[in-house]
């Protein structure tokens, strides 16, 4: 067991874990933040997406020993009051159906808009293709990203 200081949502969490433990399980089981979801464990579905220094990563396939001093943002930390333009657009378009994949979708979308504030449909598809939604909310996700883009 090693000791790690994880900077998550502007707060430092001291944890002890095996170096190979994926960040996902550290966030969920050790830190206790439950907004980040387990979907596939292989980086295939995007449900576990968090931001590492602002860039989206699949936390199920990212070992805690690799985090170092980087700062992690989970869905709980995307905005202080839950009013990030993406979150507002998500509510406005009533994007979620079951909602399980949506934390990952929202963080991928937030990272996209930060890098590219006015993405085209094709650019949205390219950026969001790693996030599976089994309920099929893709079109509303796209609309919500455009809406958030316009409000930036």
């Amino acid at each position, binding site marked *: 067991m090693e000791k790690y200081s994880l900077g998550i949502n502007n707060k430092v969490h001291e944890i002890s*874990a*095996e170096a190979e433990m994926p960040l996902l399980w550290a966030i969920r089981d050790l830190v206790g933040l439950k907004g980040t979801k387990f*979907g596939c464990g292989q980086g295939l579905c995007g449900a576990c997406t968090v931001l590492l220094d602002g860039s989206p990563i699949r936390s199920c396939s990212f070992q805690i020993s690799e985090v170092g001093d980087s700062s992690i943002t989970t869905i709980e930390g995307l905005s202080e009051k839950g009013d990030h333009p993406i979150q507002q657009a998500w509510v406005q378009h009533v994007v979620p159906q079951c*909602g399980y994949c949506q934390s990952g979708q929202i963080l991928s979308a937030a990272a996209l808009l930060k890098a590219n504030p006015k993405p085209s449909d094709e650019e949205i598809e390219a950026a*969001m293709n790693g996030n599976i939604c089994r309920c099929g909310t893709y079109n509303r996700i796209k609309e919500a990203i455009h809406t958030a883009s316009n409000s930036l």
Partner: protein
Amino acid sequence: MFAKFLFSKKQDPENRSQVYIPSRREFLKIGSLATGGFLLGVNFQCTGPKGDPITFAPNSYLILSSDNQVTLIAHRSEMGTGIRTSLPMIIADELGADWSKVKIIQAEGDNEKYGDQNTDGSYSVRMFFEPMRQAGATARLMLINAAALKWEVDPSECRTQKGQVIHSGGKTVDFGDLIEDLKKQEIPKPEEVKLKDLKDYQLIGKDVPIYDAKDIAVGTAVFGADVDIPGMKIAVIQRSPVIGAKVVSFSDEKTLAIPGVSQVIKIDGQGIPTGLDKALEGIAVLADNTWAAIQGRKALEVDWDLGPNQEYNSAKQLEEMVKSTLSNGQIRRERGNFTSAQREASTVLERSFVAPYYAHATMEPPVAIANWKADFCEIWAPTQHPQWARTAVATALAMPEEQIRVNVTLLGGGFGRKSKPDYVVEAALLSRAAKAPVRVQWTREDDIHHDFYHSLSAQRIKATLDREGKISGWNHHTVFPAIGATGNPDELHPSDGELGLGCIDFPFEVPNIRIETHESKAHTRIGWLRSVSNIHHSFAVNGMLDEVAEARGMDPVDMLLELLGEDRDITFDEEIKGTFGNYGEPIEKFPWNTGRLKNVIRKVAGEANWKESLAQGKSVGFAAHKSFLTYVACIVEVDKGTNGELLIPNVHYVVDCGVPVNTDRIRSQFEGGAQFATSLATTSAISFENGQVQQNNFDGYQVIRMSQSPKNIHVHIVESTEKPTGVGEPPVPPFIPALCNAVYKMTGKRIYELPFKL
């Protein structure tokens, strides 16, 4: 998802609701309520189709508190359909509550208190629309009577709106200020309660956002794995790799050496048949965190006796199934004489259709939490059927149901998978064995390997044309391992219930019809997946009809309108050898009306500019299909992308689901249904070799991603005053053949096998 008519009697909730004031004990059981509130229990009294009293007597609760809070109990499971919003909003609308301030509490699984909670078969709205209206209207009348008494005015001069009673003279009072007066009120008799006119609703028939949208967007919504209990162990299980496999011996030495792993426990499976609600044989690794449990499982050394399914190969079975359709089968429906129609035919079209096993692949893999104590076991689970979970846990633990409590979290997808409580039973067994709270966590691989699969299927359809070019005969062979075989291996033919999903309910005016089934064995756990056997039946029937139209030189839209004949109610009973399920409803109450199907067909042709699109050479395909008592027609347009990939630029749906309750959620179900169906048609398949599933995760079992999704999905909802019916499943069946028929226009090749590649 027809668990309802597979496993329980017909239930027909007539509008006989009785409202009552629950005891103080019941009040306290609701928990966390402001004191001084007013609680109304609604006993949804029902009668069966023939007027017999049935066991459907749920209590729903509506709570008014002095701080003006209206709290409603959602008793159906939320898996993405919006039902946790759409049922309470019916009560709120009838009551005249301020919807923006209504609070919703999720009910635990309790048959006595809530009646049917099996969230399945697209029947929540169908079953509860009237009782919910009755509940709201009763409370409204009581509030009005209380206010009128207080003001000394006639109740007929009062109405409710936004959480207030309003007198025509201008006086208003908040619901919360009437609590003490309400307690003195008599409960009105059902016949005194008048429901609002449809046109007077403020929420029903409108776009109402889901209650949980904000919680989901900020990450605070609670799904199955999000429940934490102090001291909880996490269990990951190595399950029998082949159905029926038994553990011969195992070594947990290396597993127990892994930091965080605390215990290894064997679960005894019952072998074959597995049943629908039992744990599979397996070795469970319990640890302090999920990662340690996963690592511990990897280190297990298990010697299996793989049992009778170890040589099972699904491709080989499918070949045999296809071959079987060439012989005479068991006749399940007969009209006229197909043999003579074939003899006298000028043309005989004969086509064979196959579809694979499908897994549900809910984004949230199965997960359940159990906290066992000697005299009480509490469960938290994302379950579609908390009552079945409760019964299954009680049976597995040999405890009375009263000692089991099942709390329902949000479900990260259901699609029929989470009706089955096998994973809940696992958690209960392990919690008892470990004497600690346990969360059983399925990985994605577990989910793909140990699902209750949609059955693989083979079909053969022969259509005959007479000398005038009219359809004279229809002979449909269908063969697929039945859901019932999961519990009873002797069930070798599809059940009447499964055939009633798009096969024996063939509604068209063809003079000679013969429908036959053939034997096939189940070698895995078969279950129901969003629209069940409608998936493969609609694929074959609507694909065939498109081909018949082409052979007749007819437009398929015109042909279907012609084949449906006069607008009328039809029945199948005289021709069907068993019984016609009609999705668990008496056909007198929910008739099969050809006019309603014709209406959605005409409308979709108009909305999609069908004739113009064809004239312009667009690759468009059409299909219509009634399922779960909802009438749907669909037109899909396809195109090829720059890399030769399939594009779906436009989809048009017209849906007649009776009174539309929450139009936004109707649209979202159709949007999602089109995408779900695109996966079934183009990317997803489960196969078996040596008895084992060959796919492991989303790389092998693929579902569509955003770039593959239909781009514009136009959902047109028919305005109707008919009884409302469900929309969770009906979008899937017509989409697949409409897509295939469109692809044929583009490539010139008919599709007979799912999933297809361009």
